[in-house]
C-alpha cells in the first residue's frame, strides 16, 4: 500500500468502514435478488454523495473536494472489495473527468455541481461494438442550425438506465477508425430521439444500449473543439480505466482473502486443506500477483494526479495487470472452494461474473497489451 498522507488514510479508512458495515457483499446480493431496476441501491448512492464521494475529483468551486485520483482509487478499491454496485465510477470519475478536463465554465457550472451533490448520474457512451474500440465510431453528428443532430447507436453504456446525462463520442468528420474528426457531446437523457434499453448482464450491474435518431443538441453541448476530441477522449478513458483497475484490485484482494480463509478452515483428509503444498503455492502466486498489481494501480493513479506524460502506458499496464490478476483469482476462488464454490448461494460466483465484466470494460488485457506495445514503439 502506498505511503499515504493523513488525509488520504482517513479517506481510505472511512471508505473501508462504510463499505464493510453498510455495503457488504450481502447488500449486492440483496440488490440483485430484488431486481433493482437501475442496478444499484439509490439510498446507498445518496449516502455516498453525503460522504462527499461524488465530489472527490471535482474542484471546490463546484462543490467538490478536489481530493484527486489516488483518493478516488482508494474509494473504488473498497467498493470493489464488497462488489458494491454504484454509479460512482461512471458518474463521479468518468463523466466528471470529461467535464473537468474539457468543459467550458458554463458546462462546469451546469453539470459538475449536480454530479458533486449526487443529484445526477452521468456516464460515458463510447463503444459501438462488442470490443472496446474508441476510434471505431460510426455515430454521426451533423451540423443542424447552431447545433448538431446525432444519429447512431452506443452499447454497453454503464448505468445507462439511471443516467441523466451522457458524454457521447460522435463523428463530425472522417471514417470509423480514424482519430481525426471525433467530437464529444454532453447529451441529456431526456433529449428527443434518444431511447435506451436495459442490458441484463451476468454481473447484475446496470448497463444500457442507446439509440440516437437525429437527437438535436445545441452548440453548448460540444465539449471542446469539433473534430478534435480524440486527445480528450483518451484522457477521460485513461482516468476511467485507472479507477476501474482500482476497483478490480479491491475485488481481487477480497476474493483472495475469502479463499485464503477457506484454506485455513476447510478440513478434509484429517487436516485443513491449506496444509497441502500445491494449494499453498497457488496462494503464494495469487499474493505475489496482488502485490505487483497494487504497484501498477497506485503508479497509474499517482501519475494522473501528477499529470505525468507516462499516464497512458501506466494506465494500460494497470488495467491489463488488474485484469490478469482478477481473472486468475476469480477462477481460483471457485476452484479452491470446490463444490460449494459452484453454488449461487456462495459469493465466488458473484466475484467471477463481476471479474469478466470489469475485464472487458474500457479495454481488456489484449487491448491494453497491444496499446502498451504501440506506446513503447513496437
Amino acid at each position, binding site marked *: *500500500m*502506498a*505511503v499515504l498522507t493523513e488525509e488520504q488514510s482517513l479517506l481510505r479508512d472511512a471508505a473501508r468502514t462504510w463499505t464493510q458495515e453498510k455495503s457488504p457483499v450481502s447488500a449486492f446480493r440483496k440488490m440483485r435478488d430484488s431486481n433493482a431496476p437501475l442496478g444499484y441501491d439509490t439510498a446507498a448512492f445518496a449516502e455516498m454523495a453525503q460522504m462527499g464521494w461524488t465530489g472527490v475529483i471535482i474542484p471546490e468551486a463546484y462543490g467538490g473536494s478536489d481530493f484527486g485520483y489516488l483518493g478516488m482509487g482508494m474509494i473504488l478499491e473498497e467498493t470493489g472489495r464488497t462488489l458494491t454496485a454504484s454509479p460512482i465510477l461512471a458518474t463521479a470519475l468518468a463523466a466528471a473527468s470529461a467535464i473537468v478536463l474539457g468543459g467550458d465554465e458554463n458546462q462546469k457550472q451546469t453539470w459538475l455541481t449536480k454530479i458533486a451533490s449526487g443529484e445526477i448520474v452521468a456516464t460515458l457512451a463510447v463503444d459501438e461494438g462488442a470490443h472496446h474500440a474508441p476510434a471505431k465510431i460510426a455515430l454521426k453528428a451533423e451540423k443542424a442550425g447552431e447545433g448538431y443532430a446525432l444519429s447512431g447507436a452506443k452499447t454497453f453504456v454503464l448505468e445507462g438506465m439511471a443516467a441523466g446525462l451522457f458524454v457521447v463520442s460522435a463523428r463530425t468528420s472522417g471514417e470509423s477508425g480514424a482519430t481525426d474528426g471525433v467530437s464529444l457531446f454532453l447529451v441529456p437523457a431526456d433529449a428527443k430521439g434518444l431511447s435506451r434499453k436495459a442490458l441484463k448482464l451476468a454481473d447484475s450491474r446496470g448497463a444500457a444500449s442507446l439509440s440516437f435518431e437525429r437527437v438535436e443538441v445545441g452548440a453548448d453541448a460540444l465539449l471542446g473543439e469539433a473534430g478534435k476530441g480524440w486527445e480528450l477522449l483518451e484522457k477521460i478513458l485513461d482516468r476511467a480505466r485507472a479507477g476501474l483497475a482500482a476497483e478490480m484490485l479491491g475485488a481481487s484482494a477480497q476474493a483472495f482473502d475469502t479463499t*485464503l480463509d477457506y*484454506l*485455513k478452515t476447510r478440513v478434509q483428509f484429517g*487436516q*485443513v486443506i*491449506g*496444509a*497441502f*503444498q500445491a494449494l*499453498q*503455492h497457488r*496462494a*503464494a*502466486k495469487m*499474493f*505475489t500477483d496482488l*502485490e*505487483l*498489481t*497494487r*504497484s*501498477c494501480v*497506485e*503508479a497509474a493513479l499517482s501519475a494522473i494526479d501528477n499529470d505525468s506524460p*507516462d499516464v497512458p502506458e501506466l494506465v494500460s*499496464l494497470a488495467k*491489463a*495487470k488488474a485484469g490478469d490478476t482478477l481473472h486468475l483469482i476469480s477462477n481460483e476462488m471457485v476452484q479452491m472452494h470446490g463444490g460449494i464454490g459452484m453454488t449461487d448461494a456462495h459469493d465466488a460466483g458473484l466475484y467471477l461474473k463481476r471479474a469478466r465484466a470489469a475485464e472487458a470494460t474500457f479495454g481488456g488485457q489484449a487491448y491494453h*497489451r*497491444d496499446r*502498451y*506495445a*504501440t506506446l*513503447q*514503439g*513496437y
Partner: protein
Amino acid sequence: MADFGGDDIETFRAEAKAWLEANFPPSLKGRGTMMYAEGVAPTGGDYRAWKTAMAEKGWGVATWPRAYGGGGLTPAQARVLQQEMGRIGAFNPIGGMGVMMFGPTLLEYGNEAQKRTHIPPIVAADLQWCQGFSEPGAGSDLASLQTRCEDKGDHWLVNGQKIWTSGAQYADWCFCLVRTDTAKKHEGISFLLIDMKSPGIEVRPIKLISGNSPFCETFFTDVKVPKQNLVGPLGGGWTIAKRLLQHERSGLSGGGGGGGGRGGMFGAPIADLARTYIGLDEEGRLANADLRARITAHEMDSRAFQLTAIRSVVEAKSNQGPSAATSIMKNAGTKIGQDRAELTLEVMGTQGLGWEGDDFKADELAAVRAWLGGKATTIYGGSFEIQNNIISKRILGLPDPLGPSTH
C-alpha cells in the same frame, strides 16, 4: 533523498566529493559493473592504488566500526558516499563474501580476538572468504548437514564435504557450518572458521551447464582446526547462519529502484532486440504477432516488478514497517529474469544457439551463457519452492504439515 538530515550531511558530502576527486583514478571510471560480470578484478597500478586508498579510508566497508578499520559512517552518510561515487563513475573495489555476509555476521557474533584477527584483512580486501554451507545431502534442507566436527581436546577435527563453495579455489579462509552433535538437528550445528591452507582440504571446481563457474566441491579429511576458531557458542551455528543468510539476501536483492520505463533493472527492452532480429511490418509493429504479444507481456511484468521494487523501498523508509511486498521480490524478479533470457534466445533464433567462435557476436554468445547460468537463480538463495513455502507460512499464515517452521 528526503530522509537525510540538514547541514551535517552536506558537510560530509563535500568531504566525500573532495576525497573521491583526489583518490579515484579517472581511468577506472564506469568499470565497476564490467568487472563484476567478468568475476575477476582487473590488475594494474590504478586499480591497486584505488583499492589501497579505499582500504585505508575504511570506506570499502563504510558503516563498519572504526575500531576494526571500518569507515564508521552512519547509514545516511554511507548513502551520500554511494551517490557521490555514482556521480563520478566510481565503484567499491572492496567486495566479496567477506564484506557482504561474513564480516557483518562476525561483528555481531565474534569475540574480540576473532574480530581483531579477521576484520582488518576484510577491510583491506587482502584476502578472500568462501562459504561452507551446502552439502550434497543438504541443500534446501541445510540443517540436515553432516560434515562432522569432533572435539579432540586441543583442536577440532573436521571430516566431510561441502558443495557450491564459490571461490574456494582462490579462498584463504572458509566460514563453515559443521555438526558438533549428531543427536540434535538444529542445535547440533556449530560455526567454524577454517584456514583453507590447512592440510586435508581438497578443492574441485564444478563445471556448470553454462561452462566454467566459481563453484567448487570442497573435501575435508581429518582437518585440524584451532579451538579458538569456533564462533559463538557450541551448537549455536544455526542461529548465526540464519543471520548471515539474511545479510546475503539483502545483498542479493539490492537491485531495487530501477527507475521504471525503458532500460530498467533488467537491461534494454527485448523489443529493441526484436526490431533488429525480427523486423517491423508496414504498420511499425514487430513482424511476428505471437512474439510481439509475449514480449509485451514480459515487458509489462518487468515494469510491474520495477514499480514494486520502488514501492517496497518507499514503504520500508516510512513508519509502516517492513513492506509485505519484499517477500515476493525474489520469486517475482527471478521469474522475469528467466523469461527475459528465454525471450532473448528465441528472438536471436539460430544466432542464439552459439557456444563459442566468431560465427557469433559477443552478445549472442553471452546471451546463451546468461540463459543457462540464470537457471540457478530460482534454485539458490532459497529456491522458488522454498520461497513459496515461506510466503505461505510466514505471510499468509498457512499451516506447516511438517511441524513448526524450521526456517
